[in-house]
């Protein structure tokens, strides 16, 4: 490719919808393959949620005997929290890969190639969704093998899968925006405590009704509590429209804002070059 071609492509990347979809799928595929080639980076997002779920269900099983406990067993209660935890860890790690691409120059090569600009961001988000869907499958498979039950059956399973994918879209959009703005894997990893706080200051690990004081107030305001409770509804209660509103619409709303943030970050980066 000559310098003239590069310059032309940089100025006018192809804009047809089919091409954009094609580019997005190829970049998603590349990103998924990249994740699979680094099992050490992906493993914590599977191991830690499962470990915490096993620990919680062995430690707090007694709590599930209380009359107002929202699940038949602690294992059933903790399944949704484990999915959310895994998805958040994986989304952070995926954004870290994007920052590494920027740091190592691959991102610049993408920019001078005839790739649709939005595909660069959306492709990365697509891979986070693929990983999230596989996490939901693996986690639910393990939970069901250990005696958990999905009260809402197949619809609940689909509900949990879609919710996990939308949450991955929301979080990876936000984290990708941070990655594009900073171009530094350290900054992305440095924002991990924010994810940690979102997770712990919510009802991901324990029901809100047993919390007290300011902690309960924070958990009630935390959108993550409502997403998790919607997902817990699929696991533990009869099917209800409220579950879809909380588990699907909240992540979808956050995803819309975070994708805009990611694309804006890309646009700013392009304008600065």
């Amino acid at each position, binding site marked *: 490719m000559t310098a003239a071609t590069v310059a032309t492509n940089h100025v006018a990347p192809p804009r047809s919808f089919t091409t954009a979809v094609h580019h997005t799928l190829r970049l998603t595929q590349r990103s998924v393959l990249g994740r699979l080639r680094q099992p050490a980076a992906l493993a914590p997002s599977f191991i830690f949620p499962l470990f915490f779920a096993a620990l*919680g*269900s062995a*430690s707090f*099983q007694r709590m599930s005997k209380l009359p107002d406990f929202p699940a038949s067993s602690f294992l059933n209660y903790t399944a949704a929290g484990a999915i959310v935890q895994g998805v958040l860890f994986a989304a952070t790690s995926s954004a870290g890969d994007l920052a590494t691409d920027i740091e190592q120059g691959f991102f610049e090569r993408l920019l001078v190639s005839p790739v649709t600009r939005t595909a660069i961001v959306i492709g990365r988000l697509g891979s986070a969704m693929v990983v999230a869907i596989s996490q939901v499958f693996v986690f639910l498979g393990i939970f069901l093998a250990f005696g958990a039950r999905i009260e809402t059956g197949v619809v609940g399973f689909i509900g949990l899968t879609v919710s996990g994918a939308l949450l991955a879209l929301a979080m990876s959009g936000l984290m990708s925006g941070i990655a594009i703005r900073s171009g530094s894997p350290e900054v992305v990893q440095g924002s991990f*405590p924010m994810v940690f706080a979102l997770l712990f200051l919510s009802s991901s690990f*324990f029901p809100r009704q*047993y*919390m007290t004081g300011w*902690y*309960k107030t924070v958990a009630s305001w935390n959108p993550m509590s409502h997403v998790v409770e919607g997902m817990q509804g699929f696991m533990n209660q009869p099917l209800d429209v409220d579950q879809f509103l909380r588990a699907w619409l909240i992540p979808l709303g956050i995803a819309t804002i975070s994708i805009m943030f990611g694309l804006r970050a890309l646009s700013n980066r392009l304008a600065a070059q």
Partner: protein
Amino acid sequence: MNTSLVNDTSRSSVVDGHGGRPLSVSGALVRRTLLRVRRMPAAFVPSIVMPVFQLIAFSGAFGAAVRLAGVKNAMDWYVPLNAVQGASFGAMGVSFGLINDMQTGFFDRLLMAPTKRWALIVGPMAGSIARAALPVALVIVIGFLGGMNVPGGPLAIFYVAVAATGIALVASAFALGLTYRMRNMGAATLTQFAIFFTIFLSTSQVPLSNMAGWLHAVARVNPMTNVLRLARQGLLGDITWNDTWGGLLAIAVMLFVSCWFALSGLKSLEK
């Protein structure tokens, strides 16, 4: 600092005529650890923030579970846990510092220094206690602010400090042993995993009587359960020898094994 350490060592060599006094070498290594903290505060901040955040998160989220088990205030249960965990974070600093010294060649110069080999292990271990002091103190202060009970009096805090110091020493010796063998960043990650799993597979979250199945079986034989019992006793009730000796013995045995692990790792490195 490198120069000052070498100067310290050579001064000692001149004084006693046949090598640097081990304790002065260890002292210089402690000062080096603290200097690293001052020069790279960003690497030290997480070891302060994480125990405090975990204390707040655990006592807020799981408070009901420990209250159900008869604990008056969740802080009584989670302050010792997070003090011990905060102390263990110093081990990661020890591992990172050692890897950095190996990469820059400074560790080779230390190996050539005319001093006892154990001084090279005692120094970083003592440094880990210095690193642990701030997070442990902060966790205790937050505990008091959160209404922590201290029926055991000042001795209760003393035992929290004893347990935290013991685990800081054990974790740092383990980190040294692993780093001498692996000689890369993977040692710090593995150290983190080992400490994490040892602490959480004990009575970290709830008392033994509240646990079910496999966790009860694992926590019963995990020495960390005895260490946490030692640390918690003065916050949950009176201090008794019955709740003390098991923790002290567990620390002593783990310390012996981890020091042997570190020394043998250092010897294997020299070969």
